[in-house]
């Protein structure tokens, strides 16, 4: 980077409590710690709501032929329970901890983009409220969290619920992607001197990997639900069962998102366990490189296993066997993690605090969840157990036994840092034993229920031998799980007032977050300790016996990539994924529809499109000239080239408008063929991006007139330039697909 690091720019200043009152302070906060707490509080509220939904379901299933809930209401309950627990509890809870602790653990002052961070948390809250608003519009969605088409189409789900579900998920998706960009940039650009990637605490590593998973997985969901929304609102038929629509494509898109999502929910918990186990075993983590690398391997593999959710679809033995093998491979890096965690405990001096107890419970239960997963990767056993209670048991062992127990460990470990007070260990032990016993009671029997034939998502069942007994046990367990959560809430509320003061480092831990006060000041650190090894605080406490130093680049000034550059590149990666999904959809539908509608593509105007393509590509050249002029300090030239860019962009948009009008005249409208639907979706989203770019360029122009770039602050121009070039590159692919390859499909 040629400019000096802009990472030291002053943070935006929010009103403090003293100035305007505490509520205003929380609402306007851009402090990563307060935002982290907002995330955790929202997650906790939705956790209670989602838990109550689960309890209602369990009460309905307690007896055969029960009529406590109506069938439709039961279906709403499991849809909302799944959606809530995944999008409004799991992700926010893990993102909340990442928000709070990633900057602290790398010795940074805040996240890279504090205002974007605040936007993310409010998108979460509004997205959640919007989802629940569906109840007062005539019923929540009742199509399952996976919303399989065609059941989720207008023809079979005509109430507003699914529309709210889509709108809410889009908002939550935007918020999650913004957070992912923020986390990646923070880790890449804001690490303290000496905190090289090979010294990153493992929780930071796992959060960093999770951010990439979000970056690449969420666009697949966004593309799918945008297409579903168009089906429902604009009468296209992407996923309809008639006129060439494909119910199976929905499943491919959904699980392309859905399986990485499992690791979005699991990896941060792996990270927490990798922090908690060493501290309470009084030993460094065993095999740091292997724990970190296995996280990367899991993330990479997770994008190649989605169809193991679809073995019953009938994709053929070849596809099934491929996805079976890739799914089985994931067991290897996961096993590596488990064995490294056990080896960390081996030979240690174990301290059984509540945090450690939950970490041990995690090890055992997550292993059970992993082993029952074998059933789903091995195709024939999947053909029996998929969509039964065996699956319900399996993934609750992963998500509660794994993710939730891991997060409980993290909560007991980090609560003192966040609040300045210890959680009560006495209540903690109550919470631990209740949580573990009730969980096993609820979910272990569900393995058996699945194997004796009980399908998922049924609101009631006939009186078949053993079903009633096992279901009753499960319900009793669920009620006890509710009690365990009450104990946790009581512990938090009691400890916030009466808990033992924590001090800076109550656990004698070794990572940087423990080097500041509890809770940390707004600016986090008075002074970040030197980072020479993976355990800087160990080195500080044992100067006679420090950890072996880890080599790495520690140039004193500007050691890392500039943050706007990193942020924009992350954004470009996620946007590119979104366009790849739309291009896949276009190719799929155009290819499959050729037989029925051979003239659809003849309506396109290749000559005109080529000319307007040249205009758009020229605009990249002019913008590059503008950047050069600005670097040379020649402002007049800068304005001229920038204005030329804007004009060229406008001409392209007008050209697109001309193409659209021409198609309308020939009767090609959005919903009269799959070709038209996917064409307008793909080019429309590109056009939208061009418009956003034009607005950005106009703002830059206005800022330039106002004299903003006189001081040499050119990041905005360079960052926006990256975006503009990206939009042009996307057009090259869109143009090639639609105008050059499309007619030959």
């Amino acid at each position: 980077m040629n400019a000096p690091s802009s990472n030291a720019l002053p943070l935006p200043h929010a009103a403090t409590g003293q100035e305007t009152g505490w509520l205003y302070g929380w609402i306007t906060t851009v402090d990563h710690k307060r935002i982290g707490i907002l995330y955790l509080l929202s997650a906790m509220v939705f956790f209670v709501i989602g838990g109550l939904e689960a309890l209602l379901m369990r009460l309905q299933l307690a007896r055969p032929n029960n009529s406590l809930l109506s069938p439709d209401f039961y279906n709403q309950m499991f849809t909302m329970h799944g959606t809530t627990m995944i999008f409004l509890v799991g992700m926010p809870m893990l993102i909340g901890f990442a928000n709070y602790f990633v900057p602290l653990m790398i010795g940074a002052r805040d996240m890279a983009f504090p205002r974007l961070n605040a936007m993310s948390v409010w998108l979460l809250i509004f997205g959640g409220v919007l989802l629940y608003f569906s109840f007062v519009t005539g019923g929540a969605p009742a199509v399952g969290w996976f919303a399989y088409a065609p059941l989720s189409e207008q023809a079979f789900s005509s109430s507003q619920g699914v529309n709210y579900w889509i709108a809410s998920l889009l908002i939550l998706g935007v918020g999650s992607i913004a957070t992912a960009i923020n986390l990646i940039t923070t880790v890449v650009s804001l690490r303290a001197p000496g905190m090289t990637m090979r010294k990153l605490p493992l929780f930071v590593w796992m959060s960093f990997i999770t951010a990439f998973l979000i970056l690449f997985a969420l666009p697949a969901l966004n593309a799918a639900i945008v297409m579903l929304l168009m089906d429902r609102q604009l009468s296209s038929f992407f996923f309809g069962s008639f006129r060439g629509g494909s119910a199976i494509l929905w499943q491919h898109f959904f699980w392309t998102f859905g399986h990485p999502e499992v690791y979005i929910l699991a990896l941060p918990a792996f990270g927490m366990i990798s922090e908690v186990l060493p501290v309470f075993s009084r030993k460094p983590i065993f095999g740091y490189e292997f724990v970190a690398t296995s996280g990367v391997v899991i993330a990479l593999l997770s994008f190649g296993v989605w169809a193991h959710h679809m073995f019953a679809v009938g994709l053929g033995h070849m596809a099934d066997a491929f996805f079976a093998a890739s799914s089985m491979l994931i067991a290897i890096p996961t096993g590596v993690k488990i064995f490294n965690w056990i080896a960390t405990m081996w030979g240690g001096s174990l301290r059984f605090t509540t945090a450690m107890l939950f970490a041990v419970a995690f090890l055992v239960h997550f292993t059970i969840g992993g082993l029952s997963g074998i059933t789903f990767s091995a195709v024939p056993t999947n053909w029996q157990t998929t969509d039964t209670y065996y699956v319900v048991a399996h993934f609750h062992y992963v998500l509660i036994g794994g993710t939730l127990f891991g997060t409980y460990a993290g909560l007991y470990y980090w609560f003192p840092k966040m609040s300045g007070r210890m959680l009560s260990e006495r209540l903690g032990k109550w919470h631990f034993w209740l949580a573990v016993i009730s969980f096993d009671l609820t979910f272990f029997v569900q393995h058996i229920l699945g194997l004796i034939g009980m399908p998922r998502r049924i609101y009631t069942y006939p009186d078949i031998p053993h079903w009633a007994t096992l279901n009753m046990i499960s319900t009793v367990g669920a009620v006890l799980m509710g009690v365990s959560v009450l104990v946790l809430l009581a512990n938090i509320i009691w400890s916030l007032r009466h808990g033992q003061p924590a001090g800076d480092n109550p656990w004698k831990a070794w990572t940087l977050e423990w080097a500041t006060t509890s809770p940390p000041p707004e600016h986090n650190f008075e002074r970040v300790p030197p980072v020479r090894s993976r355990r800087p605080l160990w080195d500080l406490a044992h100067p006679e016996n420090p950890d072996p130093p880890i080599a790495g680049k520690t140039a004193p000034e500007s050691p890392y990539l500039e943050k706007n550059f990193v942020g924009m590149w992350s954004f470009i990666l996620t946007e590119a994924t979104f366009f790849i999904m739309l291009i896949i959809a276009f190719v799929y539908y155009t290819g499959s529809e050729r037989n029925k509608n051979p003239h659809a593509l003849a309506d396109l105007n290749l000559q005109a499109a080529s000319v307007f393509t040249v205009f758009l590509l020229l605009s990249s050249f002019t913008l590059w000239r503008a950047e050069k002029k600005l670097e040379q300090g020649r402002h007049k030239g800068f304005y001229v080239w920038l204005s030329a860019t804007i004009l060229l962009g406008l001409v392209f948009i007008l050209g697109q408008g001309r193409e659209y009008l021409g198609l309308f005249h020939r009767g090609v409208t959005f919903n009269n063929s799959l070709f038209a639907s996917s064409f307008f979706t793909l080019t429309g989203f590109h056009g939208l991006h061009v418009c956003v770019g034009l607005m950005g360029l106009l703002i830059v122009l206005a800022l330039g007139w106002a004299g903003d770039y006189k001081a040499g602050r050119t990041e905005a121009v360079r960052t926006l330039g990256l975006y503009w070039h990206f939009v042009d590159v996307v057009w090259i692919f869109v143009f090639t697909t639609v105008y050059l390859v499309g007619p030959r499909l």
Partner: protein
Amino acid sequence: MVTSNVFHPSSALAQAIVNLFKFAFVLSAVIMLLVGGLVTYCILRFKGRPDHPDPRPFYGHTKLEIVWTVIPFLLLVCLMVLTVKAMNASDPPDKSKAPDIVVVGHQFWWEARYPRSGVVTANEIHLPAGRPLLFRLESVDVIHDFWVAQLGRKMDMIPGHPNFAWLQADQPAEYRGACSEFCGVQHAWMQIRVVAESAEQFATWEKQQLEPAPTPTTPSAERGARLFQQMTCVNCHAIRGLPGNADARAGPDLSHLASRKTLAAGVIENTPEGLTRWLKNPQHVKPGNLMPNMFLTDAQTEDLVSYLQSLK
């Protein structure tokens, strides 16, 4: 006893899956014992007290890492080989021939067609025991899944994407199954009753099902037959032999309704009382199903019941 237990297979197809299951369970149990044992040993052996000094730091061991990467990999290779074998054994690839039975998923019932004989029935599927049968699985609305655990694999029924599956029952007996893909409000009441019979019994059943529906013999049943034609019943339900729309497929074929044990995909018994309850208000018995409440008078209900009960 009618069960739906995966571990009571009634055919070589289902048995192949159980065998794979057993291997997976043994493998899982061994790994679980290993992990659980190591964790327990750590808990008992390495419990420390707050005043204990920190143990000597230990950072890793590359050879161990290789061991616990390679051994699981080898185990997974075994599992994969067995998986592919079991795939071929439980789901034989030869699906080119004409299907023996076509099952069509509807919200919320099953239509069963026997292309060789032309029999059409619903919800209760009779089949000859002792030989593999090729099922063609379709859907007319949303995605359903046909699952009778003891006979073989489950298979999705996807609109516009017909699937095929081999199923077999070795023993003449009744088997229970259910829809295994969420398909809407009454997904819970899409039960399947499979009746496997000896070849002779099955032939008798087919012959009887092929007969046109019996003509009503009592005055009440005659009135019921007229009601069936005059009201909208015939628009959705076919009764072969009765003038009207014999091709109606929106609801189950009722030509031999009285030969079936249950109504509406298993929600109630097919008795005069059950049928009366159903006809009085189907939305009360199975809320959200596609049969509307016809607001029948008691007399109308009685006539319809006696007609439908006569359709042996």
